[in-house]
C-alpha cells in the first residue's frame, strides 16, 4: 500500500491511498484502503483551546467564528463521551479554559487532519483505525452529530490530544492495532501496520507517523523544512541534497 498526505497553502489537507491489497487475498476481498475511516480519514473541526492561539487572525476563519457559539455548550460533554466510547483512557490536559466559551471567543481557529494507513488491512478494518485516531485528536467534530442527544449539565473540561499522540495510541507499538491481533500478534501478520498524517492547529502544522511493524517506507518534509527518509523503525535520516 502507498499513500500521500498533503497540506496546501490554503490549509486544506488531502489524503490519497492506493494498493493491491494483501498477497494471496481471496478474490473479491476488500481491504481498508477504500473503506472510509479504516485506511484513510480527513476532517476539519473547530479548535477549542482558545488560549493557545492568540496570534491567529480571526478574519482567517470567518465560518469558524459563526458556529463557535453553537459549539460552546457541547464541549462540556467531551470527557465522558471519549472515556466511555474509546477502548483506552485519554488525558484531559489542555482545554482548561472552556468556561470562556460561553462568551464570544476572540481567537477562533480551525483544526484539520488527514491520515493514510498501511499494513494488515483486516486489522485496520476491525478497529476503524484512521477514524479512531482522528476522533482522539478532533473531539469537537466527533460530538457534533450527537448534539441533539446531549444534556448540558456537565461543565468538565474538554479532552484532547495531539495527532502524534493519537497515532501512538492506535498505530504505535502496543497500540490499538497491535492489541486487535491478540495472541496472533507476530505470527500471522495481523495488527501490523503504520499510519502517516498531517495535523493543522491554527497556523501550526505537524507532519506525523507511527508504526508497530519493523519497517515502513516513508519520506516527508519535517517541521523544520528538512527532507527526511526512512525504512526501519527510528532510522529516519536527513537528506541534504534531495
Amino acid at each position: 500500500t502507498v499513500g500521500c498526505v498533503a497540506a496546501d497553502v490554503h490549509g486544506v489537507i488531502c489524503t490519497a491511498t492506493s494498493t493491491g491489497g494483501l498477497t494471496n487475498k481471496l478474490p473479491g476481498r476488500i481491504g481498508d484502503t477504500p473503506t472510509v475511516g479504516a485506511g484513510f480519514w480527513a476532517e476539519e473541526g473547530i479548535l477549542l483551546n482558545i488560549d493557545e492561539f492568540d496570534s491567529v487572525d480571526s478574519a482567517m476563519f470567518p465560518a469558524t467564528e459563526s458556529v463557535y457559539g453553537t459549539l460552546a455548550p457541547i464541549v462540556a460533554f467531551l470527557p465522558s463521551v471519549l472515556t466511555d466510547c474509546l477502548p483506552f483512557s485519554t488525558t484531559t490536559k489542555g482545554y482548561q479554559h472552556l468556561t470562556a466559551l460561553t462568551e464570544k471567543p476572540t481567537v477562533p481557529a480551525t483544526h484539520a487532519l488527514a491520515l493514510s494507513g498501511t499494513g494488515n488491512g483486516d486489522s485496520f478494518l476491525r478497529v476503524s483505525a484512521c477514524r479512531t485516531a482522528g476522533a482522539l485528536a478532533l473531539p469537537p467534530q466527533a460530538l457534533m452529530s450527537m448534539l441533539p442527544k446531549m444534556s448540558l449539565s456537565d461543565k468538565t473540561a474538554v479532552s484532547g490530544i495531539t495527532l502524534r499522540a493519537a497515532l501512538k495510541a492506535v498505530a504505535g507499538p502496543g497500540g490499538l492495532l497491535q492489541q486487535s491481533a491478540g495472541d496472533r500478534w507476530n505470527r500471522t501478520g495481523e495488527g501490523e501496520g503504520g499510519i502517516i498524517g498531517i495535523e493543522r492547529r491554527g497556523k501550526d502544522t505537524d507532519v506525523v507517523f507511527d508504526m508497530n511493524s519493523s519497517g515502513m517506507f516513508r519520506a516527508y518534509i519535517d517541521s523544520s523544512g528538512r527532507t527526511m527518509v526512512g525504512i526501519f523503525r527510528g532510522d529516519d535520516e536527513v537528506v541534504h541534497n534531495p
Partner: protein
Amino acid sequence: FEPRIIIHGGAGNITRPNLPPNRQESYKTSLLRILKHGNDLLQNGVSALEAATSTVSLFEDDPLFNCGHGAVFNRAGGIELEASVMVSSGYKKSCAAVSLLRHVKNPILLARNILEHGEQDLEEASAGAQGHVHISGPTAEDLAKAYGLELKPQSYFWTRKRWEEHKRGLQSKLANEKVPSCEEFRGLEGLDDQEPPWDGFEYLPQG
C-alpha cells in the same frame, strides 16, 4: 499556510536481512523522487488534492510498490486494485473510493474523478457517480472509461517479485512450476474462471 507533505510506501515485516542495502537504496531513491514531485507541486501553489493524487499516481507507476504496476496477486493469480481520496474541506466530508479494479492503470485518478464529478452528470448514469462514495468492479471500470482514464490488461501489473511472492504464499502446484515471463503470464489471465487451487478457507488464521 506552509505546505507540508508525507508519503508512505507500505509497512510490515521489513528487516535488514530481507532488504539488502542495494534494495534499500532503490526504495529511498524512489521515495525521494516521488516526495520531491509532490512537494514541488505544493510549493507552486497546487491544491492538496492535485498534489496528493499526482504523487500517489507515481507510486502506482513504480514496480517497487504494492499498487498499480507491481501490485500483489490474489489467490486466483489475478490482481485487484483499490484506492481512495479524502479532503478535509470543512464540515462537509468529501471522499471517494474504488475497489476490485483489474484494468485501471492509476486507480487513484479514478477515485479523484469520482470525488470531483460525484455530484455532477446525474443525467448520465454511465458518466456520473451520483454522489456515491465507494464504487467497485466493472461499474468502476466503466466510469474510468467514461472519464478517459488509461486502462491496461492484467499483464501490465505483473512483476516477477510479486509473482514469486504469490507462488511462495500459495504453496500450490504453481509453486513448483517455472516462473512465467510477462508474455506467458498473459496466457494465465483466464485463471479467475478456472477452479481455484485452494479451498477458500486455508488463508484464515486460526481463531
